[in-house]
Each structure stands twice: as C-alpha cells, then as structure tokens.
C-alpha cells in the first residue's frame, strides 16, 4: 500500500476526520523520517484543519520524531524504578560512548539519546527503548553492540 492509501484507510476507520490525525502523523513520519513542516501541512490537508492546529497536537506528544532527531532513538528510562536500578550511570556510559558533549544527536545524524519518562517495563529495569525495541536489564555492552550493528549496516547503504 502507498502512503496515501494507508492514510485513506485510516480516515475511513474513524467517525471524524480529526480522529485519524495521530495515525496519519505516524504514517507521515514513516514517509518523511520525522514530523517536518511538510508533514504537518500534509496532515492538515488530509484532516481539513490548519497546520497551526496540527502543530499544536503534534507538539503535545513526545513519541513523534522531531526534525532535529537522529535516525535511531535511544531512550533511557529515568523514572523511579529504573532510577533506583542504575539508569543514571547507564545513560552516562551511552553518552560517553556516543561522544555526545552538550548535544543529544550524533553529528552523523544516526542516534539521538534522551532520558525518557516511565516506559512501563519496570520489572526489567533499567530499560532502554532502542528505536521501537525494548531492551530490559540493559547494560552498556548490549547497547554498544546495537549501536555498532547499526553503524555497520548504515555504512553499507
């Protein structure tokens, strides 16, 4: 299915056009990589609303990718259960490994490192959301391996 077909399908599912806005933003994120101004304007057209309204909705939700984000997200859960299970030092280790000094995205645009609020997987703390995947009982070695695997694959592209 094309992106347009998927958007039409999403619109068909809901009683109102606006209800399809969150799903449409996900589809456009796949299309453009991030929620860019173009994506905002396109979502507004599909839902018969204004770009300002769509931007207002988009900016409320943290899970959409911002334009300044890298291709892969590394979210270290930092809320209470993970915090008492060592997420702070894990975050620092990842930050050092990626050489992030005062920035959150690597210069090659591949990785964005962020502290996340509770990811809802406290039984396997500390938890890292690596792009879409949850990594439980996370340690720096596991994260390093994932980073290197992506680096290798990306260099072949």
């Amino acid at each position, binding site marked *: 299915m094309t992106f347009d077909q998927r958007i039409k399908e999403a619109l068909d*599912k*809901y*009683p*109102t056009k*606006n*209800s*399809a*806005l*969150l*799903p449409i*933003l*996900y589809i456009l994120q796949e299309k453009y990589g991030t929620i860019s101004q173009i994506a905002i304007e396109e979502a507004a057209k599909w*839902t018969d609303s204004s770009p300002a309204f769509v931007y*207002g*909705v988009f900016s*409320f*939700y*943290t*899970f*959409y990718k911002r334009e300044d984000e890298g291709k892969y997200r590394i979210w270290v859960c*930092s*809320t*209470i*259960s993970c*915090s*008492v*299970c060592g*997420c*702070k030092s894990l975050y620092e280790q990842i930050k050092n490994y990626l050489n992030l000094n005062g920035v959150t995205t690597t210069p090659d645009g591949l990785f964005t490192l962020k502290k996340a*609020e*509770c*990811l*809802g*997987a*406290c*039984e*396997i*703390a500390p938890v890292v*959301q690596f792009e*879409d*995947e*949850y990594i439980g009982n996370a340690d720096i070695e596991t994260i390093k391996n994932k980073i290197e695997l992506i680096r290798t694959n990306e260099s072949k592209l």
Partner: protein
Amino acid sequence: MKVNYKPVLTRFFSDPNSHRLNFYLQNGGYKQAKRVLTEMKPEEVIDFIKKSNLRGRGGAGFSTGMKWSFIPKNLGKDIYLVCNADESEPGTFKDRILIENDPHALIEGIIIASYAIGAKKSFIYIRGEFVEQYKILNNAIQESYVSGYLGKNVCGTNYSLDIILHRGAGAYICGEETALLSSLEGKRGYPRIKPPFPAIKGLYESPTIVNNVETLVTVKHIFENGIEWFTSIGTPKSPGPKLYCLSGHVKKPGLYELPLGMQLKDLVFDYGGGVKNDLRVKGVIPGGSSSGVLKDDELDIIMDFESLMAKGMILGTASVIVLNENVCMVDALWNIARFYHHESCGQCTPCREGSGWIEKLLERIERGHGTKDDLKIMSEIAKNMVGRTICVLADALAIPVEHFVKRYFNEFEAHILHKGCPNRQLAASNT
C-alpha cells in the same frame, strides 16, 4: 506467608503460544462471549458484573457494573466502549504483559462489555511506546475478524462489533479517561471537566465507557468461573484476583497474580524474595508512584482500596516499588516530582506551576541550597494543588510529597541543615 491461590488470568503465560487464537480456542476461548450474546440480555450482563462487585483495575477502583449502568437508555446516539491501554503510571506494567500474553482475553472482555452497554464500535487506546504489543494486539484483532469473533454477526449472532486499535504517542496524561478521549478525537491530550462524565458525554459527545485492560480481562474470567469464584477471593469490599507489579530493589521483580488484600510485606518478602543484596527496606511505594510511601515498620498493611485510603494513600495500580536503605528519599521524591511536572498537561495553573515549583524546591534541597522554610513552602504548594484542577494529576504529586516528607522528615531536614545529600554518591538519579 504465601497464600493458597491458583492463578487464572496469567495461568498460560509461560506458554509461548498463549497469544495465538488457536491456543485460546483450545482453552475455552470465546465461549463466554458466545454464551453471553446468545443467552443473556445486556441488562443481565450489567447486573452480573454488578453482583460480582468488580472494581476497576486502572487505579480508581470504581465499580465496573455501576459504571456500565450509567449509560443512558434510548438516547438515539452511538455508544462507545474504550479500552484504556495507555499504561504509564510509574511502577506499572501489568497491562503490557496481559496484552503480550493473552490479547484474545482482552478482545473477549471487550465483546462482553460492548454488548452490555450497547456499543457497536469499540476502541483500544494503546500507548505509543508499546510498539511490539501493538503488533501482537493488531494480529489478534485480525485473527478474530477472520474467524467471526468480530465484525458483522459476532459469534454467529445478530450482534456486530468493530474494534479500532488506536496508538497514543507518548503522554502520561492520556491515561486519564477524559484526556484519552480528547486524544482519541485527534486533539492535545487535555482532560475535561467532569461532569458531564463520559458515560453521558464522552467520545464525540456520545455516551462512552472507558475501562482498563485488566478490568476487561477480569470480566471475561468472571463469566468463565462465576461470581462465587470471584467473590471467594480477596476481601468483601475488594474482591477478586489482582495483578501486582513488583519492581525496584526487590530480588524477584515481576508480575504476581494474587488475591486483592495481600499483606504488603508478604508480597515484598515471600513473593519478591526480599531486598536485593540483603539490604534493608527503607520504604515501599504501594501502588505506583502517585500512591504515597510506607516505612519498613508499616508493611503489614492490607493491599485493598480501603486500607490504603485509611492512610491517606491509594491502592492505585497495586504497583509496588521497593526502595532499599541506600536510597536518598529527597532524590526519590525529586524524581517523582520531575515526572509529574513533565507530564502535567498545563491547562490548570496549580498543577502546571505547582509541580514545577515542587521539582525546583526538591532539586535545591538535594543540591544543598535548601532553606529552612522550603519544606513548609513545599507542603503548602502541595496542599493548594489538591482539588483545584480539572483532573487528579495534581493530587498524584501532592500525595507522595505529603507522605515522603512526613515519613522521612529528618532526612529532608538533614539535607537542609548540612547543605546537601549525605548520600550523594549512592543516590544521584536526577542530575
């Protein structure tokens, strides 16, 4: 002491195929939906759940049958059932594990509940981060459509039902039912003033019931095992099994299906195996980060809605977070305050500003710049947040502030007197 209880909701979770339709059907799946649709009237379904005295498992503990009965009759409007799968209360992970392992039990619960309230369309609002769980649930829904358990003529009856699986996009507040409905309508996740309650004016201004994942799964099991089974478990006012989440400094963190009304210390020590590295307990958060905190000598408390309320706390999601003797309680509360400040939707001034001020005060105390008035100011702010906002997110921070400061007052005071955290190296979770 361990109790004599045989798990029902989670009994097949060790089987790698428990999420598949075939497995579900082999174990009696969709029989209850079929029986309800063919043998019972909607009012009888509501009465049945009322009699079971099932209380919502999302945190508030409101009677599920009662909630269903609030749907107005013959209004001529569409009616909606919405399943709240936006699980985000820190410490809570039960709904995620339920969806991973038994998505069809949720779908069957939704069929029964939708039939009871007269809904022909139902929504599942799942949190955006649960990408894997979204896929599992989506597959299960497709399987159900293909096999005639959803869509036109559910289970071969006249009743038709569609389920729309809707992904959230990262906002704790969307777990609040009216915020969830705003979000489902494609808006910012702003809570709405109640009344009108969703049962009268909910999704698209139509009568809507919002139920938690565990609640709907439990509904299915009450029909399968009977009211007597259900009420024989737990306490008279809080009957039935409950999924307890154990996390933090506990040897065996995880999901435990046990009767409501367990003693907290049995959960922590007999099931959780006690504190990691055999350290001592400093505090236990009983029901998710908004629920308060108990000291090591208070762990004989009964985990039901009434006993925690009597202490000015809440059972919430029964998500137990164990904190060992090395945890700095100022740091722990700062972490919690940061969470609620981050997640405040910003509509109401007391919550938006209050949560920010509390976070700043705690940071200042932890970093050694606290003044002797700070604790009083913080308590005043917390008190002024409660009951002055559209939703209870403000209360969700005010409760832990009150109980952390009350129970660990000396530790908070020592931070101010000695200009910093004596435990800094061990704590340090926020900076």
